[in-house]
Every structure is written in structure tokens, then in C-alpha cells.
């Protein structure tokens, strides 16, 4: 197992790069500890597959280096990097039995029959495949097959890292959480470095201790699920994590005072630096309350989702969404709202100001 370091990585699929958008990946720096569970999260086109291919050695980065345990791997090919990869669709040998599928990577490494048998049994037990070991793989359901793919990735103890590329896409929704819990449990048991790539926030936040959020080729935040929700470092994280996402509203800063919609707003910290081309307030719908005074708003629409009410309001500064309990009485017409200061952040050119 290995500690993984990505140093000043940038990648472009073009020969010449004139501006930021010509880069698929920009200035990526990551330190992943040995034995950690990590996720790369972002919408399609954010650069996460490019990054995965650079780590596995399928792609050589335009700039920067990839280190495993401080050893430079940048110019090594995928085989030399010793990694296991699990893809979106099951990759198995249909004509082999479940046992032989799981044993295959071990036999290739020249392990003795008794070692192979004990490892296969161990992993089969963890994945609840023991009773099907002698069956042919071709007769299994999609999730059964994907379990074998997972098993094959997990069975070797000598790999540097196990990488999962959207591994649950083909799995039925009601089975997804079963496999998700299996993976999480396996990570706790075998303690290997695992990297999980997905566009699904639930999968990323559930699996990983640390989530790396990517947007337009850049890492916009690395943090625990709680940190990403409570304190987004970039407006994209605020928008992408949480449902509905964070309210991002234009504001003005003068002499350290935040002005929004003609009102003075208190943020979680005093603001000093102000030379930005754009400044915005970020506040999640969960952290806004109706109050006697505060920002005057017009109530535009209330959607009752059974357990919440999502209230659309409008004020001079823009549209604001508020999330209330389903039992809360929502005033009609006009109302006043206040932001919970602890969770009110100011963003300069989309990055949090602290």
C-alpha cells in the first residue's frame, strides 16, 4: 500500500495552451495517506477521469509528477505501477467459475495454490460470494458480476492503490446501498488506499473520509463530508453539495462592512481583503430563518415536499431559497428573514474570504 502524492499536475489535450479553458486539469496538488478512503467528486467534464488516468499511468501529464511513497512514478506504465482498478461495467471471465475469476490475479502473480485458496475464501466471505464460488460467472446478475469485479480488485494485498471508477452505475437503486455499505466495511477491514471516482454526491460522501471536489479542471475543495456541507470553500461546492444548493448572492464590501440588499450583514468572520472583481454572500437554505426584522423579502412560492417546505423568496438583492420544517407556518406576501451568522460566508471571485 502506498501514500500517493500528486505534485503540480496539469494536463492539456491540446498542443498549445492559450488560456485556462485549454487545460483539462490545472495545478492539482494532493497528498493521499496510506490506507485512506478518498473520493473524487464532480460533474461530467470536470477532469476527474483525466486525473484517474494520470494516476493509473494511462495518460502522461503535460506538467507535474505522480509519486507513490515519495517515489516518482510519472514515467512508469500501468503494469509497473501495481494498481487495481474497478470500472463502471463488470469485467469478468464469463466462462470461468466465480472461484477462478477471483483467483486469476493471484495465480498470475505466482502465488501457491494454498495461498490462493485462503485469500479467495477470505474475500469471498467478505463479499458473501462463498455459496456461489463453484458457479459459472456467466449466470450471475449484474450486481453479482460487479461483486466479482470488486473481489478481483480487492483480493491482492500487494497493490499500491485500488481505484473505483463509478462502480455502482449498473447496480439497481435498492441494491446500491448494500454494495456501498460492503465497500465501506471492506475498507475498514483491509485498510488499503482507495480512490473512488463519481459524480454522485451520496456515493462520494458515504464512501470517503476525505472528498476532493473538482470543477473545470481544478480542485475547489478537499474536506470531510461535514466540512463540505458546513463550510464550502468555493461557490461551486456550495451549489453542488446539498439539495437545494447554497444561495449565492451578490454583495458589496466597503470598509469591512458587508452590504446586501440595502442591509448590513454579519458573516462568520470579519472581512479584510476586498480587491475582488466580484463579491458574493453564500448562505445555505437550511441556515435562514423568518424573523421580525431583517432583510425584507417577498414570498414567491412554497413547495411542500412532505417533510420540508422549500420557500422561494425575492428581494432587491436576488432570489433566496429557504428550507423550513414541513410543520412551520410560512408567512404569506412579505416577510423578513435573517441569516445564521455562523454559516454566512463571503466569497471573492468564487473563493471563500477568510
Amino acid at each position, binding site marked *: 500500500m502506498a501514500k500517493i502524492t500528486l505534485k503540480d499536475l496539469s494536463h492539456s489535450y491540446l498542443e498549445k495552451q492559450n488560456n485556462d479553458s485549454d487545460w483539462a486539469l490545472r495545478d492539482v496538488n494532493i497528498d493521499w495517506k496510506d490506507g485512506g478512503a478518498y473520493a473524487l467528486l464532480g460533474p461530467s467534464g470536470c477532469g476527474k477521469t483525466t486525473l484517474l488516468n494520470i494516476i493509473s499511468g494511462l495518460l502522461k501529464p503535460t506538467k507535474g509528477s505522480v509519486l507513490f511513497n515519495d517515489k516518482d512514478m510519472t514515467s512508469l506504465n500501468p503494469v509497473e505501477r501495481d494498481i487495481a482498478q474497478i470500472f463502471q461495467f463488470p469485467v469478468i471471465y464469463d466462462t470461468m467459475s466465480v472461484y477462478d475469476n477471483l483467483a486469476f490475479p493471484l495465480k498470475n502473480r505466482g502465488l501457491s495454490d494454498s495461498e490462493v485458496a485462503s485469500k479467495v475464501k477470505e474475500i469471498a466471505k467478505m463479499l458473501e460470494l462463498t455459496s456461489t464460488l463453484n458457479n459459472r460467472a456467466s449466470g450471475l446478475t449484474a450486481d453479482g458480476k460487479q461483486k466479482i469485479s470488486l473481489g478481483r480488485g480487492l483480493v491482492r494485498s500487494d497493490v499500491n492503490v485500488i481505484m473505483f471508477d463509478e462502480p455502482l452505475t449498473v447496480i439497481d437503486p435498492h441494491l446500491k446501498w448494500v454494495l456501498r455499505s460492503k465497500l465501506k466495511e471492506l475498507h*475498514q477491514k483491509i485498510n488499503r488506499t482507495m480512490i473512488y471516482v463519481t459524480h454522485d454526491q451520496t456515493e462520494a*460522501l458515504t464512501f470517503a473520509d476525505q472528498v476532493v471536489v473538482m470543477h473545470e479542471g481544478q480542485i475547489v475543495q478537499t474536506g470531510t463530508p461535514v466540512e463540505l456541507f458546513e463550510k464550502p470553500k468555493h461557490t461551486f461546492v456550495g451549489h453542488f453539495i446539498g439539495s437545494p444548493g447554497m444561495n449565492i448572492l451578490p454583495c458589496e464590501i466597503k470598509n469591512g462592512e458587508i452590504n446586501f440588499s440595502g442591509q448590513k450583514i454579519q458573516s462568520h468572520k470579519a472581512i479584510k481583503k476586498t480587491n475582488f472583481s466580484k463579491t458574493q454572500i453564500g448562505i445555505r437554505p437550511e441556515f435562514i430563518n423568518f424573523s421580525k426584522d431583517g432583510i425584507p423579502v417577498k414570498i414567491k412560492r412554497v413547495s411542500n415536499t412532505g*417533510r420540508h417546505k422549500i420557500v422561494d423568496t425575492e428581494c432587491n438583492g436576488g432570489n433566496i431559497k429557504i428550507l423550513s420544517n414541513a410543520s412551520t407556518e410560512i408567512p404569506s406576501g412579505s416577510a423578513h428573514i435573517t441569516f445564521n451568522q455562523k454559516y454566512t460566508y463571503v466569497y471573492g471571485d468564487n473563493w471563500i474570504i477568510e
Partner: protein
Amino acid sequence: MSLELKNVEKKVGIDTHIYTTSLKLEKNTINVLLGSTLAGKTTLMQIMAGLDKPTSGEIWFNGENVTGMKVQKRNCSMVYQQFINYPNYTVYENIASPLEITGVKEDEIKQRVGKVAELLKLSAMLNKKPDELSGGQQQRTALARALVKDSDLILLDEPLANLDFKLREELREELPKLFENRDCIVVYATTEPSDALMIGGNTATLLEGKVIQYGKTLEVYNKPENLISAKVFSDPPMNIADIIKSGDNCKFKDNNLQWKSSVKIKDGTYKIGIRPHNITAYKEGNNSVEINGKVQISELSGSESLIHFTNGNLNWVSLSNGTQQKNVGEDTKLYMNTDEFLYFDQNNRLINNG
């Protein structure tokens, strides 16, 4: 304006696709058909549109029997899950196409396309071809084409299913607004209870070719007539357990958890349904009871946490606000809000329909 299905039945060979159904949809309403795949949503819509004929029964529109009348003679539009656009036409031409066919004057086409494009945020893309657009923009183009022609009946068959999570969130919020000031009947098919709740209007729950319940969306959600309707309209799945009532006390059949109930029912055995959000990591309501459990997994969606746990022989799902992280296998304590329990009799019909 109204659309009425009178004793409509659809058989294909010996299979019944739609069991005898009567349903009346009023003007200016959005009606959600909610059910899993193969529930009969698409068949019902095709019958409503005139794309398919019922085996028996009649369809009435505006007091006129339109059974067997071809789709071309009916003023209706349909949008499918797969975005369907003309690849060689620009976005403008795509949206304008139904008006061109019916011979609307050029100035009027321009004005109507402009208006609907603005509504769907497509104004900047009118000169592009569909393949230059993102999935969300392509589906908005298909929606715009359905909206531009002032149909009496607009049928949307899982229009958001192929879109990214965030895009879906945005569009299902915009959709009801689009129809607010239009003189038409909208039917929207989906497999997702959250879609129905966000869209509001009326909902029909469907299972295996039968309409189980039809009414105002929130009423169907809060007061499901029976256990089937409750199950269809619950995601994550509803927790269901057998209970024994004696005097003021209720207890689960499979464990010793007890609570007082004011529900006026005779002593005996019943079933209860507990929605996941009524089992939480914190107390809610004045009459909550504690339940101990072993955590199978906790899943985070960003702003909410699902905790799957076992208690005795039963598997439970709970949904809490905020990020509640629990380890697999951990013993935990949760709270059930007994005020929100739904009681069903032995025939699975709701009892506490007060």
C-alpha cells in the same frame, strides 16, 4: 376543459397492461403518474394521447368522446425520457417546427419561439445545433417544442430521468412554473416520489397496471389510502412492521418497544408504516420513543443522512437532517416520532385517516 378516462382497460394478448381505470383530469392541473417501471405509466399516456387504443372503455375530452381519434387530430404534445430533436435543425428551427407544420405566420412563430426560449433559458442557443448543447439544454429544447404550440394536453414521460442530479433539481423546480398561466392539462410520469412532491398538483399512484389512488399530491402522500399507495409514494422505502395494540399501549410484535397511541382502534394486531424521516438521530415531536440499533451503513447526501440499521429481525431506514456519521457495526440510538405513524388494518387499509 377536462380529460376523462371511463372504465379504460388495455390488454395485450392474455396480459392485462392496464386494469379498468377511471380518472378525471381537470383543466389547468399538473397530474403526476407515480410508479416504478412497468406500472403502466407510459401505456396510460399513450392512451390519453391517442397513440394507442384501449381494449375497452372510453376517453372523453372537453365533453367529446375521442376514443379512437388519431393523435394527429388531437391537440397534444409529448416529451420523452430520451431527448428527441431534429439533429440537422438549429434550436430555433426545432422549437418552431410544430408551428411551421400548422402554417402559423412567420412573425408569430418568431415571437412565440422567442418567448418560450426565454422561459426555458435557451435564448442564447437558438442558432446552435442540438449536438452542440448539453443534455439539459437538449431536453429543454424538446420541452420548448412541446410548449410552443399551445396544446390542450401536454404529456411528459420521465422527461428528467436522463439528466444529472443537479440539472434535474433545477428543471423540476422550473416545470410547474412554466404551466402556471397556461390553459392546458399536464400529465407527468415519474418513478421518483420526490419529483411528485416537488411538482405538486395531483398525483396518481400506480402499481402493476392499476391506479391505486388519485388526489392532491400532498394528501396522497400524507394520507395514503392503503399500504400499497404508501409504499409507492415513499423513497427511501417506508419501514413497515407488525404491531399489537392493547388499551392505550402499542408495541412491536418483534421487540418490546412500546408507545402510547391515541388512535381509536380495537385491540388487536395491525401494521404500521413509518416514513424514514420519522426516525431520526434527534428527538422530534412530543411523543417520541427510543430505538436501539446496529448500524449497517450511514449514507450522506450532503445535507441529510440516511442511517440503515437493524433492530432484532427487522431492518430499518432512518433519515435525519444534517451530517450524522456513524460507523458500520456501531450501536446507536434513534428516535421514532410516534405521532407520524400510519396504522393499517389487516386488509392493509389506512386506519388513522382523521
